């Protein structure tokens, strides 16, 4: 918290503290009295004895400014406290009670707000007499409606939060709820507003004083000092400048403090919103020759340089992907799935990011592209769909303009033809009445429809690869099924490749041809989907699969629990990053990070003691030597055959259904601790009709 307030906040607070202390302790300071005349030569400029000089009567201006602070700050703080004292309870009441209470309070409040405030202030002070008390009361009362409104709004926002509901469910009385649950949350925005309000009141008091409508002479006030000095400004400019400068700095400081406090209450960035595009800085990258695949990612690394150290969000990921195939990326949240996608697309936040490794699209090295070239690639050859469709849609523009835009920009279609094409696109993603939807705004559509629109936009220029980052996580199951089916069909029709990020293993098992399992920024297992689910090697993959509830489990079936939490990416455990949570970890896992071993040419895993192999039960022997036969684990030399290993599927791009059905009879032959996977390994559950009916 301290860090986020920034230096300005502390300087400003320091200034306010200084002025406040001077005002309070003025009598104790070794200063001449503010009304003592001829303590120095009249109208003298600043000197050591009189740092702000003297005025026409030879009074010390510094002393007068210090005493003036009493009035300015006194009125500022006093009036704000008065407004708060009256306004806050009203706002709390209106915001918490709602209904009639709210309606009455806010009606009165609106009328009060409509009052011409300054005129009112002038009139009252002129009528009731210009003294400190009256000025303070008038300015304080004038602030009440704004306080009421602010506190009511904040209260309402918190009163709707679930923790308030929970307190009511516990039987906590209203007064205690207000006091313990709501007031502490309202206090930060209120404090912020108080500082901003003090700045306003100080200026207002200054203005009144300037007009002679504040505290009367001989008591000095800042506004009054400026007014006095005005007449002899040409001979003694310091008479105006000194109080003006002090007042300016004080008002500025109140504003800075209020502003910084307000920033505290703003929502922190989630990291998922669209970020400003900036080319990431390069990490050293080994030379690499691209193979012939559509998409090739070689040793991709994305590191964030933070105060806590280097966060390796993506750390050496390699894979290849052919047309017509779907690659799924799975892992817990924070494992680097989304960052991998963003790194490939070069959609990384600008500051503090370094990227290394290579991304080839049809042989073109995208990491060497300029931001401008990348933008062109992004619209046309690569496309992305994200979890929240609203991040990709502009809320104030119609669907029609937004879908037509890429068509105009990238395909150069005229406005009219782009619109017609947009309608065709919407129809192709299963949107009923596309013409009508074109005229709508995003908020008028359901979540599923919005996601269809973003898919249509992503597909509009015929990309080679579609990246979908949790595209259905926010959607209902029936709609999720429709959207995934749509992506799948489009992939077939357009002969694209798809990269699907998901935490839902059932979705992955259903739709992916190849799977990457990520843990702490690294690939820990990778291979053809069927193979990976059938012959799971890496304990983390196994644990993930067993922790998913299955429809076929009996009621109250205990799921596998992975103890602990994903590691802190800034302070990874030694050796295998999974070792603190791994039930099979042995000494070697703590000291040495396992490389990627080959189960088959395409199925790789990073583990010293893979499940279902001899190495899992035997003594810690170097696995590469421990076993013979087809399952012989051979470390893959990264950067050479590694990235290419997935590239040529043994039987070419086999239709996924065939793929999986073919491997079904194999059944689990390892895995003492119960078979892995949500319905993934049960032959009877993936009957041919189940797969064929998917319309593949």
């Amino acid at each position, binding site marked *: 918290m301290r860090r986020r307030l920034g230096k300005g906040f502390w300087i400003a607070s320091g200034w306010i503290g200084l002025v406040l202390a001077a005002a309070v302790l003025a009598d104790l300071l070794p200063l001449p009295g503010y009304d003592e005349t001829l303590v120095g030569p009249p109208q003298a400029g600043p000197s050591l004895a009189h740092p702000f000089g003297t005025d026409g009567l030879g009074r010390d201006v510094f002393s007068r400014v210090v005493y003036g602070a009493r009035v300015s700050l006194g009125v500022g703080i006093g009036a704000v406290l008065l407004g708060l004292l009256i306004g806050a309870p009203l706002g709390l009441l209106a915001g918490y009670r709602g209904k009639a209470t709210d309606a009455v309070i806010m009606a009165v409040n609106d009328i009060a707000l409509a009052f011409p405030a300054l005129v009112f202030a002038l009139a009252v002070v002129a009528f009731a007499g210009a003294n400190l008390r009256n000025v303070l009361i008038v300015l304080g009362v004038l602030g009440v409606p704004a306080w009421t409104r602010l506190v009511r709004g904040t209260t309402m926002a918190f009163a709707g939060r*679930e*923790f308030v*509901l*929970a*307190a*009511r*469910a*516990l*039987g*906590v*009385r209203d007064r*205690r709820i207000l006091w*313990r*649950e709501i007031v502490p*949350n309202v206090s930060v925005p209120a404090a912020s507003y108080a500082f901003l309000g003090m700045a306003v009141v100080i200026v207002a008091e200054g203005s009144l004083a300037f007009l002679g409508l504040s505290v009367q002479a001989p008591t000095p006030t800042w506004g009054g000092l400026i007014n006095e000095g005005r007449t002899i400004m040409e001979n003694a400019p310091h008479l105006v400048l000194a109080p003006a400068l002090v007042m300016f700095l004080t008002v500025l400081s109140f504003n800075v403090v209020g502003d910084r406090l307000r920033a505290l209450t703003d929502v922190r960035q989630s990291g998922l919103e669209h970020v400003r595009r900036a080319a990431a800085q390069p990490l050293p990258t080994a030379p690499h020759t691209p193979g012939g695949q559509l998409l090739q990612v070689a040793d991709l690394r994305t590191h964030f340089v933070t105060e806590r150290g280097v966060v390796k969000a993506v750390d050496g990921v390699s894979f290849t992907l052919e047309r017509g195939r779907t690659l799924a990326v799975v892992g*817990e*949240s924070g494992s680097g799935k989304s960052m991998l996608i963003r790194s490939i697309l070069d959609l990384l936040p600008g500051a503090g990011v370094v990227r290394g490794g290579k991304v080839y699209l049809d042989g073109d090295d995208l990491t060497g592209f300029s931001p401008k070239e990348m933008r062109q690639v992004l619209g046309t050859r690569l496309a992305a769909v994200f979890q929240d469709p609203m991040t990709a849609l502009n809320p104030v523009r119609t669907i029609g303009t937004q879908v037509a835009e890429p068509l105009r920009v990238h395909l150069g279609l005229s406005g009219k033809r782009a619109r017609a094409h947009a309608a065709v696109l919407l129809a192709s993603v299963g949107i*009923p009445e596309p013409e009508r939807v074109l005229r709508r705004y995003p908020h008028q559509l*359901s979540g*599923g*429809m919005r996601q269809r629109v973003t898919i249509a936009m992503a597909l509009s220029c015929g990309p080679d690869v579609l990246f979908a980052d949790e595209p259905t996580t926010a959607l*209902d*199951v*029936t*709609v999720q*099924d*429709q959207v*995934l*089916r749509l992506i799948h069909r489009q992939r077939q029709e357009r002969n694209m490749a798809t990269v699907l990020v998901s*935490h*839902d*293993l059932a*979705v992955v*098992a*259903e739709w992916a041809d190849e799977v990457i399992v990520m843990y702490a920024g690294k690939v820990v297992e990778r291979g053809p989907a069927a193979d990976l689910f059938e012959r799971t090697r890496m304990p983390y993959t196994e644990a*993930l699969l067993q*922790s*998913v*509830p*299955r*429809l076929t*489990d009996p*009621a*109250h079936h*205990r*799921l*596998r*629990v*992975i103890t602990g*939490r994903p590691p802190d990416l800034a302070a990874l455990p030694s050796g295998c990053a999974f070792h603190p949570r791994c039930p099979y970890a042995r000494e070697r896992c703590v000291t040495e990070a396992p490389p990627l071993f080959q189960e088959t040419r395409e199925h790789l895993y990073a583990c010293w003691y893979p499940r279902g192999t001899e190495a899992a039960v035997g003594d810690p022997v170097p696995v590469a030597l421990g076993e013979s036969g087809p399952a012989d684990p051979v470390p893959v030399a990264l950067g050479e055959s590694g990235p290419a290993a997935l590239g040529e599927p043994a039987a070419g791009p086999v239709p996924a259904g065939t793929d999986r059905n073919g491997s079904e009879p194999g059944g689990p032959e390892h895995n003492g601790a119960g078979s892995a996977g*949500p*319905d993934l390994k*049960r032959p009877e*559950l*993936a*009957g041919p*009709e*189940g797969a064929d*009916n998917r*319309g593949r």
Partner: protein
Amino acid sequence: MAGSGSAHLRPPGQAVLRAEDLVVEFPAGRGRSVRAVSGVSFDLLPGETLGIVGESGCGKSTTARALMQLPPPLSGSVRLDGVELTRLKGEALRRTRRRLQMIFQDPISSLNPRRRVRDIVAEGPRVWGVGGDRVDEILEAVGLDPDTAATRRPHEFSGGQCQRISIARALVLEPEVVICDEPVSALDVSVQAQILGLLEDLKERYRLTLVFIAHDLAVVKNVSDRILVMYLGKTCELAPGSELVERPAHPYTRALLASIPRSGLGLPPADQLISGEPPSPVTPPSGCRFRTRCPKAAPRCAQEEPEMRSLGGDRWVACHYPEVETA
């Protein structure tokens, strides 16, 4: 008021919680109102877990809050141990609070960011003057270190740990019934498994009766004895979990099951069962609310609202043409 019927309710004396014909409305602007929950009934025997599934907006959370009287339903009855909660007001209602608790979906939003975790859990005992000595025990039972909880605030904990805090807060007063509204929907699968396991442990240890709401049928099936399927504010089907999954009778239940990837239940794919999205609850279809998406819809479905009726055993369905005995 043609509700979805209450034939499936068991004799009143047996149930610890019994909701009958709940109706909840919200203003929908321009003087109209949306009936978010429309004639929903169910009951729970002591120690039972009732799962409620349905797509978002079908009224699951609204039902949960109506049970808690936060806010009370427009009409209908909620009986806790025979006491009619909907008629209680103020202090009398407050006194029943201890026995009925709730766990919310969003682990972050359901904890006050400005209070320390231990204070959050100790709030109930403080208000009621009982169970203060159980705070540490319950914190340990949900897998949190009491010393850490005494000094930290919620934002210093992960989503899964925050959900543990919520569970501790709900259980510290030893309630009879706990309503869990999507308690694992915001969590990763690994954390979800932890929380589901924890709920089962605590259920045994404290002999709880649970209402477990979720949109994920596999999750609901894992923890529930019986499952209630909801659609657009109505009940569709009620059956023990395994029966519901193996022999779904309501067309909507069948569609839900068919949309689950790899459910492999021999159902036709979901898009042959249903298409499109739920209609607006402001203007629900006449008769059966599911008829605009139902593959079996017939003229009768538009005119006559189906009521819950028995299919034998503990299976109940609200449909004129249920699918019987397919498997």
